[in-house]
């Protein structure tokens, strides 16, 4: 009988009606599993709660309101996309206004209304885990990350998928994604689809979906033609043919200036939302970066040189084939080098672990390093950290990558009588929540490992300390982004501790300061670095392993100049967008009357 998901076909005059019994009520009736009338009445009431007209409010509003700070421009954008754009839009807010949140709000709204079940999110590889985390922690949505060999990705059993664009493009995966009809497709950093002849573009074009959200702060990188390509994905044919569009709206041959602004605004307002910072009325505070460059003690200096030489000799002993970017050996050596820069307890523990797996000869070598580490009484960074805590009156958010360093900081500061709380991936959800509550309450210092850099909003604090420094610039931004985000009302001060003449010191001086990393938001970084972000860490490492000290500095400097060039190109693209969208107003905050 047709009481489960089997439809009852009563399509006698062309109007198919599908009858489903998702809760198996027919089976219960036949089996005599009956409830009381009160249960039935309660059950019927429950459906009434979810049937809501589109009344200018978000059904998801009450829930999301407790988990995220919903800004008026985000709510307006979500309503506009839901009610006036039929769920297909280019979200092009300026950097830092929360496009990801906006897209997730729209998704949650469509899902609560039962319009969306199968969702695919395509992001740059570096942002996959961030999307996953944001959806999990802020929107209570468990997504599956599509990764690994193509046969291991089960597209049929997962209704909610996040895939990097690179994974999605792979032969085999591409075809599978295109063979499914998705309810919603979200493409983050959609400027990567700007060229209609690229695989990225074709992928997005060939994936079928009812609703489509494309996110980018810079829909125009070089010319108006790129905006044309993106809009054509959202609403094919809206702008006419390419030549017609160019002749109508492009004021110059390169498509860098726009004409007929009002006509363009009218057309785009059906498919595009762009809020500018100045329209939000939100306070955007500044960031001030302070590098505390420390002179190492004699003991630290000797330990640093000896361990770096050890790492280099391990690297040189690797066959060429195992020196590739993702090789486990290289990863372990990078980690060792970073532990060395983090703290003496971190490197000591790592060395002891390595010793357990070493040959007798290797163990002797490590014993010598451990001997050197035992001569370091207190890290210079810890002395500076204590001074910083004593010199500041506000709450301090301290980041380190390693658990040993976290514990070292906690113990050292508590000895000083400072109230410290910790937050790490090793803690369960309840412990983490308690830790955050403690920090909101009486604790002066919160020490976080990288796990703490995603999914936390700590706008009540405005002092950030990088006790050690990630080599990946995105990680640095994710740390700062915990406090410097919408809702922060004070300027943010970032203190980075480095020891002179170490790798970190060069990264900070020659790379991060050159591109003014600490001033950049995550959106800025994506625009600047693109896929390069994945190559930076191994490039830095190889620079040090394959050169002498001077050569390594030169290599880092070269990398810095490379990034600087990218930053300048990104800045000019931003400038072009600013100029064009100054004239073409697509803010959801205005024009709600329509």
């Amino acid at each position, binding site marked *: 009988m047709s009481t489960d998901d089997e439809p009852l076909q009563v399509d006698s005059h062309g*109007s198919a009606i599908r009858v489903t019994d998702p809760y198996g009520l*027919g089976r219960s*009736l036949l089996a005599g599993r009956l409830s009381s009338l009160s249960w039935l009445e309660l059950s019927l009431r429950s*459906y009434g709660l979810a*049937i809501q007209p589109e009344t200018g409010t978000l059904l998801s509003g009450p829930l999301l309101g407790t988990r995220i700070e919903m800004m008026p421009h985000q709510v307006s954008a979500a309503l506009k996309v839901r009610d006036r754009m039929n769920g297909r839009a280019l979200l092009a807010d300026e950097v830092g206004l929360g496009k990801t949140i906006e897209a997730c709000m729209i998704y949650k709204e469509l899902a609560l209304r039962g319009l969306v079940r199968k969702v695919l999110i395509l992001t740059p590889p570096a942002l996959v885990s961030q999307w996953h985390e944001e959806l999990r922690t802020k929107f209570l949505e468990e997504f599956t990350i599509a990764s690994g060999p193509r046969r291991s990705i089960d597209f049929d059993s997962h209704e909610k998928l996040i895939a990097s664009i690179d994974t999605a493009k792979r032969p085999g995966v591409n075809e599978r994604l295109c063979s499914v009809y998705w309810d919603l497709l979200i493409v983050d950093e959609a400027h990567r689809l700007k060229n209609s*002849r690229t695989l990225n573009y074709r992928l997005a074009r060939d994936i079928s979906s*009812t609703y489509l959200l494309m996110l980018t702060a810079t829909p125009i990188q070089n010319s108006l033609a790129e905006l044309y390509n993106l809009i054509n994905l959202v609403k094919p044919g809206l702008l006419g*043919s390419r030549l017609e569009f160019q002749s109508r709206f492009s004021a110059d041959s390169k498509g860098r200036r726009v004409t007929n602004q009002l006509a363009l605004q009218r057309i785009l307002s059906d498919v595009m939302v762009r809020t500018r910072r100045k329209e939000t009325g939100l306070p955007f505070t500044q960031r001030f970066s302070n590098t505390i460059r420390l002179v190492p003690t004699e003991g630290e200096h000797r330990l640093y040189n000896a361990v770096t030489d050890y790492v280099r000799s391990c690297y040189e002993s690797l066959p060429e084939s195992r020196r590739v970017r993702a090789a486990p050996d290289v990863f372990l050596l990078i980690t060792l080098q970073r532990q060395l820069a983090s703290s003496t307890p971190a490197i000591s523990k790592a060395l002891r672990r390595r010793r357990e797996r070493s040959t007798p000869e290797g163990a002797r070598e490590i014993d010598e390093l451990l001997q050197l580490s035992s001569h370091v009484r207190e890290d210079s960074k810890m002395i500076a950290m204590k001074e910083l805590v004593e010199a500041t009156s506000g709450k301090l958010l301290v980041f380190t990558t390693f658990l040993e360093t976290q514990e070292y900081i906690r113990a050292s500061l508590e000895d000083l009588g400072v109230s410290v709380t910790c937050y790490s991936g090793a803690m369960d959800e309840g412990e983490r929540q308690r830790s955050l509550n403690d920090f909101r309450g009486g604790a002066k210092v919160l020490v976080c490992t990288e796990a703490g850099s995603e999914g936390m909003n700590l706008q009540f604090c405005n002092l950030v300390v990088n006790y050690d420094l990630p080599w990946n610039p995105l990680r640095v931004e994710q740390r700062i982004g915990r406090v410097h985000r919408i809702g922060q009302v004070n300027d943010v001060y970032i203190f980075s501790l480095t020891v002179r003449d170490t790798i970190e010191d060069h990264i900070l001086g020659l790379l991060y300061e050159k591109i003014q990393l600490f001033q950049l938001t995550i959106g800025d970084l994506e625009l600047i670095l693109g896929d390069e972000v994945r190559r930076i860490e191994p490039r830095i490492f190889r620079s040090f392993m394959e050169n002498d000290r001077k050569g390594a500095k030169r290599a880092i400097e070269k990398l810095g100049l490379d990034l600087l060039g990218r930053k300048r190109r990104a800045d000019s693209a931003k400038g072009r967008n600013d100029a064009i969208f100054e004239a073409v107003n697509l803010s959801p905050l205005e024009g709600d009357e329509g």
Partner: protein
Amino acid sequence: MSSGIRDFVMGYLELAGHEVRSERDCYVVRFQSDPDRIHAITFSSEVARRGQCEFVALGSPFFNGVLEDTRRRGVAAVRLPSADPVVALSSMTSGCRVVLGAVEEVPRTALKLYYLLTYTSHRRSQRTVEVALDASGQEATWLYPVRNYVDDERPGRLGAKELEFVLDRSASILKEGVDLDLKGLKDESERLLASAVDRIQGYYAELRDEARNEAEFARSRAVRPTKGRGGITAGISSEEAEGLVAEYDRLEALEVGRERARCDVRAEATIIGMLLVSYNVLRCHVELHNGDASREISVRILPNGALDPPMCEACNKPIRDVRLCPNGHVVGQECIEITAQGETRCAACERDPNG
């Protein structure tokens, strides 16, 4: 805070027998089946923001759990008390005396089905509807307004085949309403589709023209075909132009197909509740008296007091206002006439050769 959500969840907790106590700003829930499982919940967003307890709202995990559990229990059985035959009969007639004779109780079963109707096109609308049928598949419209149910501990049963039959019948009844609803939606959706298809077809027609013109231009000026940047060809061969045209045809078909899918109007009926109704139909033997004339008739009375009316012996239509003519014919008001002289004329008598 939505009081609808709070009332619903509190109603659930009470019905499920979970222990609930108010503690500061939260409600602490201890689950009956698993006393170690304790949840602190709140319906106040302000309290939730302080991070003390779990916020319960549409879409929150706790609320979703409550919904799931509640909706699985949407099947109940009830018994309807029988109607009072004297009261029911008092509405039946005037102009003749009614004497109630033997009353026989005939047990019956009906099923009341509750549906959530969902219409999806480019947007979505939902409403709930009820369909009530007796076990023979006849629509039992009288059951819709009835509310004085009593929980039934020993309900009548419906077999699998009967249930399937009743569900099929209910779907047919639903379909009539759905067709009406769909018509308006379809009209709007077809307008949207036509405009989208025009847009897409116009666009690809232009692209095809451009490709052919490029090829024609290159041929007439003997321009050597070269590919320009950004996908625009500066001059293309006829073969390349035809290749492009074929690609545009493919994309046009793809886009039009997608628009059709987006504008496709679908209706889905989800069964959200089932109410098995046991009741008795009263078969009453009634004597009608008018002067010397008397007749015995049988009347069925439903639990809501509605009569299954007798048929007029003159016009063969059901009659509410029953009359008995001096010759003993049961007729309706319209088939009986009292003349100025006080004589009664009955349409049945005029036809009756013995009248």
